[in-house]
């Protein structure tokens, strides 16, 4: 169980984490979602005690990491797979970590096998591929057989096989009753793995809900309709309670009405329809819109789509 209470971290003028409160529960995969620069890594660094909070607290099993009796046996983390001394062999890297928590050499061999690194155990890790480095980082996180695991963007840069391995591993770990806390900036990745979501933007909590709730609240049902009389239909749809967006070329996206309602409106008012179809805003798009106002750096890409800040559901 990880608990953050009013967690705040300021670096100079930058408020990286702003009054964040959440808890991560055991037995499921909790996705930690936010655009790049939202404060995910900073939050994880605060959990691990690498950085000290400016205000607020974060505890692991009720204690700050520094006060855990056996830190590795309670929490394992993969923050940055490159955070190893490349001149040290995989075996010695894991051994020096294991020894701090009185873990045996036998356990080092076990996690090397688990991560599929047995054959390269004696090789220096500077020659490792990205995927092997990631496996070494995960082996380190698993060394103490901890009940809580944290992974920061674990699939970044991995090939499909590596991504699948990590996904299955996380699911297996959660199924064993462990707390799995995994960050990502990709909603699609979370859709595939997470049970619960904590969404942040600009260091603030945006949503704390299950993935299903997030999808229900944010992937809005819309109706795509094409008509030679768009102005007339737009007025009628708006009067009926829909929100209308002109997509150009006679196409309108109506939100808040179902296709039957739009079709009936058109029929009753003798408006010709050339196309009528239900449409889903993708979850990725919902996430983009949800966090749009909280992205730290906007790329200068022209984008004339209107922004709909979504406030439905359990949004904090």
């Amino acid at each position, binding site marked *: 169980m990880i608990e953050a209470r009013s967690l705040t971290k300021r670096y100079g003028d930058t408020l990286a984490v702003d009054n964040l409160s959440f808890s991560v529960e055991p037995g499921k995969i909790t996705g930690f979602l936010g655009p790049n620069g939202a404060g995910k890594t900073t939050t994880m660094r605060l959990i691990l*005690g*690498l950085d000290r909070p400016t205000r607020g607290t974060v505890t692991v099993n009720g204690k700050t990491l520094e006060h855990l009796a056996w830190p590795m046996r309670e*929490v394992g983390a993969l*923050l940055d797979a490159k955070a*190893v*001394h490349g*001149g040290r062999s995989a075996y010695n890297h894991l051994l020096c970590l294991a*020894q701090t928590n009185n873990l045996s050499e036998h356990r080092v061999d076990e996690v090397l096998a688990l991560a599929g690194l047995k054959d390269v155990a004696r090789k220096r890790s500077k020659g490792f591929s990205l995927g092997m480095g990631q496996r070494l980082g995960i082996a380190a996180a698993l060394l103490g057989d901890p009940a809580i695991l944290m992974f920061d963007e674990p699939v970044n840069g991995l090939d499909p096989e590596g991504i699948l391995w990590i996904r299955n591993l996380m699911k297996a770990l959660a199924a*064993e009753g462990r707390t799995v806390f995994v960050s990502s900036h990709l909603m699609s990745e979370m859709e595939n793995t997470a049970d619960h979501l904590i969404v942040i933007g600009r260091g603030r909590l945006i949503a704390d809900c299950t993935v299903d709730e997030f999808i229900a609240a944010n992937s809005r049902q819309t109706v795509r309709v094409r008509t030679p009389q768009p102005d007339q239909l737009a007025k009628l749809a708006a009067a009926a309670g829909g929100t209308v967006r002109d997509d150009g070329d006679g196409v309108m996206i109506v939100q808040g009405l179902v296709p039957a309602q739009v079709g009936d409106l058109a029929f009753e008012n003798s408006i010709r329809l050339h196309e009528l179809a239900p449409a889903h805003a993708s979850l990725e798009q919902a996430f983009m819109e949800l966090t749009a106002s909280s992205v730290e750096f906007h790329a200068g890409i022209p984008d004339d789509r209107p922004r709909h800040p979504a406030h439905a559901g359990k949004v904090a």
Partner: protein
Amino acid sequence: MGGAVMHHPAGRAGFLGTLRSEFTKIRSVRSTYWTLLALVIACVGIGALFSWGQTQRLMRISGGTTLRGRPLPPGAVAGAVAHVAAEIRSSAASISLFGLLIGQLIIIVLGALVITSEYSTGMIRTSLSTMPRRGTIFAAKGVVFGAVALVTGLVTSFLAFFVGQAILSTQHVSTTLGQPDVPRTVIGGGLFLAVCGLLSFGLGMVLRHTAGAIATGIGLMFVLWILSGFLPGPPSGWFGQADIDKWIPFNAGSTIWEHQANGINPFSPWIGFGVFCGYAAAAIIAGLFLFRKRDA
């Protein structure tokens, strides 16, 4: 495991395990071996060369010329030989340790690397998330490096001494460990190297940057010492040059292995070495303070 309830052994992760971990770290990277090998070779080699130079000096003089080949007055040769032989014999131990002048720079490199390589590779973040008690990590690292530096320093110092004496003995100007102050000089050489390394270890923790820590270490130990030989002292009658010179880190620290007091250096060996240890302690305490306080 069947659930989230874990059974952990009694006690807590502490100093002993971290000590073993830090020993694994230092023995499992090649840079340790290369640096220590370079230390031994430099100290022994330069000491041997310098000892050989002293025997050549004595041979020239007994051959009737000065070092530069100018003839000595015939009546002065015997006296000059006796004088130079006595001078060499009385400082035979520190002559054989002359290589420490370069050796100190090499142990500075290793002392800095022990801590700065964790920062340059990012390993420190992994280390701290497995052992978050920073004082424990810092102490274990310092003890392991200090022990490695001391053992290597002592081996180096004794090796340089024996090789140097073997060369000096060809002209019968060597000394032995049975002579007064010689054991202190040779053991002192090892202590000096270890404390140089620890000073650099402290600087490494303060600066967290390899090049910065090494440059600062070399600046303190070597450049200050060279400058002290070139710069004029403060106005006389105020306080003398020697009053400043003796506080220069190298001058203070090397009293313990410089068998012969070299005039500018009024500190007695153990006092001078104590001052030097004080500098190292200041760097280490500053490092510990910052390590505990700063974000990693």
